[in-house]
């Protein structure tokens, strides 16, 4: 096995990992603020992927252009889902919240199956098979653009949380629910905003990932689990942790696919998850609660 091949696989794994990281960032932001684990996360991701394929088939629109309206739609739906369905569950026990989102996941996942059937769908853009060549290193154009979109979105979100008034208010709600209420913040509104932002992350990640992966309905639960693994490895609620976790999982999957067998690649991720949960349950970059 040549050194070049390993380097190429590492780069591809890192770039895919950044897209995974953006998806997981959505989950992490939602958990970090609302303290609810979004069991329908992967299903939301597949909805975005289907949206990109449909819009491409109908209007020949590039997935990166489509990402903007899809993200806006996801923001609105995320807001409504939190405001209408999840907010009343904030004070309920954990298993009750779990089951609520499991029910949402069942509905969304099977609605996709009803509408699109079980066959895989994809889209073909003209730059999909091109690559940049740096000496003997090849980088897929589509993969690089997808990672670029992920980093761009994540950076935007960081700036939003650090610099804007709304972002600070959301962080206040996350840090101290009661305190935020006392100073007059409309906590439920900010919770809904947060869920909407989580939806934006998923929407853009989905539109980017559809260039790299064919979409089928069973991908939903798979991505839900993948997002869990990533945020726990990186640290639930930590934003940089989600991206780092995404890269780690992307690279480890790519290497496992190269050195062991592709079908065993997620065993590696789950093994990593178990180790992290046991020895650093707050995640690599998480803070101890």
């Amino acid at each position, binding site marked *: 096995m040549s050194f070049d091949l390993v380097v190429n696989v590492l780069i591809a794994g890192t770039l895919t990992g950044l897209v995974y990281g953006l998806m997981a960032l959505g989950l992490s932001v939602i*958990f970090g603020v609302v303290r609810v*684990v979004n069991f329908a996360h992967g299903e939301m991701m597949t909805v975005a992927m289907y949206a990109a394929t449909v819009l491409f088939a109908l209007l020949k629109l590039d997935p990166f252009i489509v990402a903007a309206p899809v993200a806006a739609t996801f923001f609105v739906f995320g807001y409504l889902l939190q405001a209408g*369905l999840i907010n*009343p569950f904030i004070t*309920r026990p*954990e*298993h*009750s919240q*779990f*089951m*609520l989102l*499991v*029910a*949402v*996941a*069942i*509905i969304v*996942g*099977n*609605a*996709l*199956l*009803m509408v699109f*059937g*079980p066959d895989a769908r994809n889209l073909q853009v003209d730059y999909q098979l091109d690559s940049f060549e740096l000496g003997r290193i090849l980088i897929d154009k589509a993969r690089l653009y997808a990672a670029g979109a992920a980093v761009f979105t994540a950076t935007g979100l960081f700036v939003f949380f650090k610099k804007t008034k709304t972002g600070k208010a959301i962080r206040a709600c996350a840090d101290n629910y009661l305190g935020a209420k006392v100073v007059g913040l409309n906590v439920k509104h900010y919770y809904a905003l947060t869920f909407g932002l989580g939806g934006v992350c998923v929407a853009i990640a989905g539109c980017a990932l559809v260039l790299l992966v064919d979409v089928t*309905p069973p991908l939903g*639960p798979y991505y839900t*689990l993948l997002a*869990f*693994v990533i945020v*726990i490895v990186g640290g*639930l609620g930590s934003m940089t942790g989600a991206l780092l976790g995404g890269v780690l999982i992307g690279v480890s999957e790519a290497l496992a696919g190269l050195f062991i*067998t592709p*079908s*065993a690649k*997620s*065993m590696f991720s*789950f*093994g990593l*998850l*178990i180790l992290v*949960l*046991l*020895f650093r*349950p707050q995640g690599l970059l998480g803070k101890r609660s």
Partner: protein
Amino acid sequence: MKKEFIYPGILGILLVALPAFAGNYALSVATLILYFAYTGQAWNVMMGFAGQLSLGHALYVGVGGYAAGAIFYHWGIGPWAGLWVAMALCVALGLLIGFLAFRFGISGVYFALLTIAFAEFTRIGFDHLDWIGGPGGMFLKVAQRDTWDLANFRGPPLMYYYTILFLTISALLLCFFLLKSKAGYYWQAIRENEEAAQALGINTFRWKMLAVALSSAMTSISGVFYAFYYNNLFPEQVFSMNRSIELILGPVIGGVGTLFGPILGAVVLTALSDGLTELLAALGWEIPGIKQVFYGVVLLLVIMFLPNGIWPAISRRLRL
């Protein structure tokens, strides 16, 4: 005779007499209901009593089923011996997960995700184990269905019905006495407030481990039953997260932590699932996925409007 024994007693007698007037289809539905009721009861010991949320109980069903199934498949040794192997393996697994989690102070969401991780890890591992058939599955030889071969647990549907009925009643009685025992009170104390329980001098680690051990042992039996009733096992199916969720829907819908919740939940869900199949077939709407969408909607409505489950609402109404 106390009031709390009368209704379950009548129900029990009806269930024992059921095969006399039920057809094969009704019997298979009843078997399925009891299977979910029993497995839900087993999960309930851990979550409902001791408050430890497991979302990976398919792990114990799968390992139990595969253990007893493989022993029968490879060496022709019946499940009465395999059962103990299955139980020992599952208890060991449960204790391992419990030990790791409770020693390192993992609880709540993190514990639930850890149980999912172990189940998924095992699923992919079994996919790569050729000894038990890998992803192609393991098939037990289907024996003649008209004779009762108790030694190998092969026989007509009636035999399976009575077995799972016996298991469900035993589990119900066990849980009834457990709830009134010292362990039951300790568990409920831990469930309600672990720190307070600890402050009162309860060794919460030991009692939580006991709950995990008991729950995994009970669930392993349900795995052995599953293997010999359905005669085929696929890692993709038995260990999937969907299966884990399917197993806990009954107790969640029926009422977590109640004695009759898992049973009622299993009845409601199975009736709903079968009813939907019939209804959609009658309407000619047989699109893949449509049944699950309805199922999800009903689940959503129950969780939203009956947060404690159906059983507490009914028992209040009936003043039981």
